[in-house]
């Protein structure tokens, strides 16, 4: 092995990138090291009496959400790709919109709608004189959580599978049709098997989101790893036990990623032809048309329209009471933290992505892999790692200052910097993927042309590369900004004292059974996410294949 194959020369870009990525993975390393420390009394109690429940509940929710998301996501993707029916064009993007609603907001909204004084029971009582037993309207249990996760997260499967149908599967589907295969047979015998890699990619995102969630399960009172980590930290103040729980949750994540890799296998399905033609949809008639519109329509209504109408109604009702100076400060806190973190993510992503594309070798390849690691780590795990790491840093700073005879003026572990740092770790992958794909689209030819004309890497970066990847930078920034705006578990654990954002405020109100009061913050988050998603849909549709 030659040294130039391990760590190629790239002026300062390599050094800066390796330093930044090391900084980002330090909390994870810290967590891994601390996992194996001797157990505390709390941990012994958790392991003996509660660990099994955490494991069963977490895996049950993740498994069933995965199953239902595949069922809903793939059937909808197939429907809008292969068939022509009324409102198809609108539904094509509308079916993505549930992603704009964070599941925790969906959970409060559904609970509010289904409660005794909610719109559904009131309508049944007042209009139809039906007074049914409360158990029929209770969704605060595991099946209810599975419903909430499925209806708001299935778009991951839908989006990836539909993109696959549009770009790759056309000739195979057309061949199946020519060979006399009917709709159902084509779907089960051709479409599902060839789309396996895409479906697995989508469902693994869904499962990772479920493992990351704290808002839904804590609101529904379900014991999962996320809620357990929160309780252990906030109620017992036991960082070591929280770290052990985080370690096990991380183990589950690694298992999910291994299963994903195994399920995908070698089936990457990249074809020798680069000619991409869209699938020509078949016109549906009669009852089939009605079923198609009804099915896609109901999912859109349940996953987006109904919650948004309900939230808007509540927001109007409580607007005067909630829209105060304090609320404006929550908007500012949310946009400030999301904006600053998104800028940091984009800057680091640009530095690392430019380094990994300019240099071939082991170090650049490993750097690229480590950069995207954070997104698969659940928020609660990142939070515990970051807290542990910052407390450790504070202790070191204290020691150094004490030796110098001074007392520390600022503790890192109580500052906003800790939250921003955690956001950067958690959402780096989103910014990085966007910028990396921007670089990939542009390729190396312009960079090389500039260098042969006498420009250094850095001059080339500012005069050529940066200008050419502007759309990717914009996309990366917006995606990260919106995700941070919606984020809950990291923010709850790591925010400084008395620091509220829109998401923590929505959570706090909902937890205090003031669901209507939580609506204004929720609708603000949903609107910003929805607009961003719609813009992306337009941009992607405009892009040539």
């Amino acid at each position: 092995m030659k040294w130039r194959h391990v760590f190629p020369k790239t002026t300062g870009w390599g050094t800066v990138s390796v330093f930044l990525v090391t900084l980002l993975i330090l909390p994870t390393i810290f967590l891994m090291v601390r996992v194996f420390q001797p157990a505390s009394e709390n941990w012994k109690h958790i392991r003996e009496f509660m660990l099994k429940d955490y494991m069963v509940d977490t895996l049950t929710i993740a498994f069933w959400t995965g199953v239902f998301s595949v069922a809903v996501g793939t059937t909808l993707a197939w429907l809008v790709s292969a068939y022509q029916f009324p409102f198809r064009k609108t539904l094509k993007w509308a079916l993505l919109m549930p992603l704009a609603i964070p599941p925790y907001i969906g959970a409060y909204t559904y609970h509010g709608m289904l409660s005794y004084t909610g719109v559904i029971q009131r309508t049944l009582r007042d209009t139809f004189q039906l007074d049914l037993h409360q158990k029929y309207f209770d969704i605060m249990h595991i099946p209810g959580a599975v419903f909430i996760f499925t209806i708001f997260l299935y778009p991951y499967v839908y989006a990836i599978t539909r993109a696959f149908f549009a770009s790759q599967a056309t000739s195979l589907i057309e061949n199946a049709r020519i060979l006399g295969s009917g709709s159902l047979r084509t779907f089960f015998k051709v479409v599902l098997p060839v789309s396996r890699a895409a479906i697995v990619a989508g469902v693994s995102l869904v499962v990772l989101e479920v493992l990351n969630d704290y808002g839904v399960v804590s609101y529904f009172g379900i014991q999962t790893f996320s809620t357990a980590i929160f309780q252990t930290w906030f109620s017992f103040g036991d960082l070591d036990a929280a770290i052990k729980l985080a370690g096990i949750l991380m183990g589950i994540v690694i298992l999910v990623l291994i299963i994903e890799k195994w399920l995908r296998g070698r089936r990457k399905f990249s074809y020798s032809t680069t000619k991409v033609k869209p699938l020509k949809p078949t016109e549906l008639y009669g009852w089939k048309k009605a079923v198609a519109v009804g099915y896609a329509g109901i999912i859109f209504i349940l996953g987006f329209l109904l919650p948004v109408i309900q939230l808007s109604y509540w927001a109007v009702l409580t607007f005067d009471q909630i829209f105060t100076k304090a609320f404006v400060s929550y908007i500012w806190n949310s946009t400030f933290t999301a904006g600053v973190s998104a800028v940091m993510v984009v800057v680091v992503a640009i530095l690392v992505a430019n380094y990994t594309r300019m240099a071939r070798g082991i170090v650049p390849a490993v750097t690229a892999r480590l950069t995207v690691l954070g997104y698969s780590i659940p928020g609660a795990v990142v939070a515990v790692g970051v807290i542990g790491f910052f407390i450790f840093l504070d202790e070191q700073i204290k020691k150094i200052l004490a030796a110098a005879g001074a007392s520390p003026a600022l503790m890192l572990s109580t500052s906003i910097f800790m939250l921003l740092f955690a956001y950067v770790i958690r959402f780096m992958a989103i910014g990085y993927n966007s910028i990396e794909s921007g670089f990939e689209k542009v390729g190396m030819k312009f960079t090389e042309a500039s260098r042969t004309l006498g420009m250094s890497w850095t001059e080339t970066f500012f005069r050529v590369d940066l200008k050419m990847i502007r759309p990717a930078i914009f996309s990366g920034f917006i995606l990260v900004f919106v995700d941070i705006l919606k984020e809950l578990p990291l923010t709850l654990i790591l925010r400084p004292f008395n620091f509220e954002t829109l998401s923590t405020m929505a959570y706090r109100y909902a937890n205090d059974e003031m669901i209507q009061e939580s609506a204004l913050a929720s609708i603000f988050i949903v609107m910003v996410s929805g607009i961003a998603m719609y813009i992306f849909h337009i941009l992607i549709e405009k892009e040539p294949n």
Partner: protein
Amino acid sequence: MYVNISDLCFDYPGTKQKTVADFFLHMQEGEVISILGESGSGKSTILRLIAGLEQPCKGTIKVGEKVFCGAGGAFLPVEKRGLGMVFQDYALFPHMTVEANITFGLKRWKRSERKARLEEMLGLISMEEYKRRYPYELSGGQQQRIALARALAPKPSLLLLDEPFSNLDAHLQQRIRDELRETIKKTGTTTIFVTHDQEDARVLADRIVMVKGGTIQQVGKACEVLKETVTKQRVPVEA
């Protein structure tokens, strides 16, 4: 000799076989050399090694008085080599006008010199009236001429051309080829160009280097190398 390349070797990480092995080349100033070979023969890699876009594992490259790479791992970065290169798909910067593209490599020139050089280059390729246009407003042939003007503008010590005609329609190829030869000869620039097309090599090159599997098969004048190839190719057919 003006260009001296000897014992040049290159391999990609993770591959056992060398992409370029023991390549050598000696050129006089003003000479035009064609590296001819099939796809995958390593000819483009040789060009990238000379340009400094790849780092060789062994060998020396010297142009004029400058040592590009040599003993003890000495390696001159691409931007310091003072070369001109025309890429296969031209790589004109899409966000810059023709004027900005051509003057891109003249950053250390005085403003007045830069302007004069721009006019000179536009005159050389007969495209004076196109300087405010963007690359996407030009035809394939025009883009190729701008790419050549951009490469020649900084007065490079060596001009490198990577499959310069592969993106052009067949009916355009001959005309552009003649123009290119005329421009290169007019400026007297030492040139190495890579092609898989024997006709390109025959028309443009003073000498041809035939490569296969990253090693030199033959070197000589076009009439010697190509005649022999044709004869060799015919043997099995006639047999």
